[in-house]
């Protein structure tokens, strides 16, 4: 695995900067007192726990996007998050897009492949990267872990600001498959905060009945397509509002032996607001509320909701950001003779990004996450945990 990473690094260093090609490596210096990470089978909320102090690979990314003829474009994004992952480097998104040149303020586009539903207001930079803090909000961490639209999306937009209007707006509808396990992480493990995205052919290491398992998230189990429908309005004052409804239409009784998982029936609503002020100020907030179910067992039902507020200010090449997160997850009917599985928590995150050079970016992040999850008792742990993470990232890009 280390050899594969080394090869990728070597490749990165020798590939000339070509049209549409992007490559970056993000190395971290980490100081954490986090509980045993969910990635190692614990109930810790962080990607890096107290065993991970020191130098770590944040992310290695290789991407390409460009025209492939006519009105068609293609985008492919591959990342490695850990040299021990299998596959060591894998796709996070890959799609083709039909995007004709607008002939009027009305325009449309069609995406086919695997891509993110337009939920996150944080992940504005290429590669679904959060430019404000290293770790994402609990809400968008979950989107990166468990959600991917693998199918077709159609978007109709009206770009009124190009003809003297005050608003741009659009609606997007998608039909997708291969997202049936979505919901398993938030139900079994609860919320988390980090920057790792589950790759299309990869897994997410997680807690499972006292041990660790590698879960496949992108798999078709019930042969029943899901959908999302959403929309946005953007005003010429810099305010943008988004809303999205997601339903993977999982049949909870469908089970797939090869990945040992159900088709989780997961649906949620999310709304977000973001304002980019004239002097480099950005304010945003998102809220998401949903539920999930697996199996025909009435105890296998969960509800979850979360929101965050983020404020950021750009000072020349520096950007400061602060975020407050609040999250909650609970079982709706308890296991016989057992308590309901309940989780509630809050977090504060501060980020400082310095764009030192066109190709070098330094980010420092401090994160404090406080959570109370009664399932921790199953591991003999105190259900209440306060975890801290200080990490420093150096990102070199082509």
């Amino acid at each position, binding site marked *: 695995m280390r050899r594969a990473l080394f090869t990728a690094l070597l490749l990165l260093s020798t590939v000339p900067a070509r049209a549409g090609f992007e490559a970056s490596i993000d190395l971290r210096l980490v100081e954490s007192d986090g509980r045993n990470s969910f990635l190692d089978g614990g109930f810790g909320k962080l990607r890096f726990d107290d065993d991970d102090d020191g130098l770590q690979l944040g992310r290695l990314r290789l991407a390409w996007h*460009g025209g492939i003829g006519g009105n068609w474009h293609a985008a492919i994004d591959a990342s490695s998050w850990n040299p021990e992952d299998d596959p060591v480097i894998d796709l996070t998104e890959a799609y083709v897009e039909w995007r004709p040149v607008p002939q009027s303020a009305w325009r449309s586009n069609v995406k086919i492949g695997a891509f993110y539903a337009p939920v996150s207001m944080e992940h504005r930079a290429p590669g679904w990267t959060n430019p404000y803090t290293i770790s994402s909000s609990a809400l968008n961490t979950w989107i990166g872990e468990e959600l991917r639209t693998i199918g077709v999306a159609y978007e109709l937009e009206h770009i009124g600001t190009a003809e003297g209007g*005050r608003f741009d707006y659009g609606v997007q509808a998608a039909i997708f498959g291969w997202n049936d396990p979505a919901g398993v992480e938030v139900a079994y493990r609860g919320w988390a905060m980090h920057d790792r995205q589950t790759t299309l052919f990869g897994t997410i290491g997680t807690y499972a009945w006292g041990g660790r398992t590698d879960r496949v998230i992108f798999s078709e189990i019930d042969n029943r397509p899901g959908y999302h429908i959403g929309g946005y309005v953007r005003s010429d004052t810099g305010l943008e509002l988004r809303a999205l409804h997601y339903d993977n239409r999982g049949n909870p009784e469908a089970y797939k032996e090869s990945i040992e998982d159900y088709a989780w029936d997961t649906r949620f609503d999310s709304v977000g607001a973001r304002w980019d002020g004239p002097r480099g100020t950005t304010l945003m907030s998102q809220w998401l509320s949903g539920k999930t179910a697996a199996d025909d067992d009435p105890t296998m039902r969960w509800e979850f909701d979360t929101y965050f507020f983020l404020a950021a200010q750009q000072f020349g090449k520096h950007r400061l950001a602060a975020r407050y997160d609040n999250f909650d997850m609970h079982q709706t009917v308890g296991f016989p003779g057992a308590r309901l599985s309940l989780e509630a928590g809050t977090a504060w995150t501060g980020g400082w990004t310095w764009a030192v050079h066109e190709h070098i970016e330094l980010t420092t992040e401090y994160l404090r996450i406080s959570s109370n999850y009664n399932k921790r008792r199953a591991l003999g742990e105190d259900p209440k945990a306060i975890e801290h993470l200080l990490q420093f990232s150096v990102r070199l890009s082509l």
Partner: protein
Amino acid sequence: MRRDRQTPEMRPVFHTLLTLMAPAALAAPLQLQFVGVDGKGIAGTVVTLRSMDAARPLAGPSAFAMDQVNLQFAPHVLVVPVGSQVVFPNSDSVSHQVYSFSPAKKFQLPLYRGKPYPPVTFDREGVVTLGCNIHDQMRAYVFVVEAQYYGRTNDTGTWTEKDVQAGDYEVTIWHPLSRSLKPVLQQPLHVDAGASRVTLRASAALQLRAESQVPANWDAY
């Protein structure tokens, strides 16, 4: 570098000829300042002076460039006489797909980088909003004008034209970020023989759009 006005060597030949032929007393410098209701100069507005005398020749067409640098159009605003040709080089390493669906000029340049397409002729008066189909945050404006004199106000809201012939004009001022594509001011202006300074005041506070400050490669859903 933003080049918001014609460089001297690009000025129409007739302009130079007129200046040479006209008696000195008839052409004089004009300094025009455009201020808001608060009295502060408004930078970056587009100013045109059109003679009331229909027989006076208009500024003739010329050649211009609208570059694409670091995922932005440069300049952000280009003022060109009707009939001018604009070439769209691409100084970025990524491809761009320039388009406009503005009534004054509908066109598109299929995805390209490096060698630009032949120049585009802007043959109708009006405001042309330019976009890139790949990078939605790229916006620029071409003001296609029919006038004897034209330019943009500087940081103090002032526009200076060296040789303006005396006479009656209509002065028109646009702001590229105005919430309307209509002029923010339009009124008659008499220019005396001999150097003159004029201050024009907006009748109401300008309602301006907030153009995005975030990097152009963000928000690419």
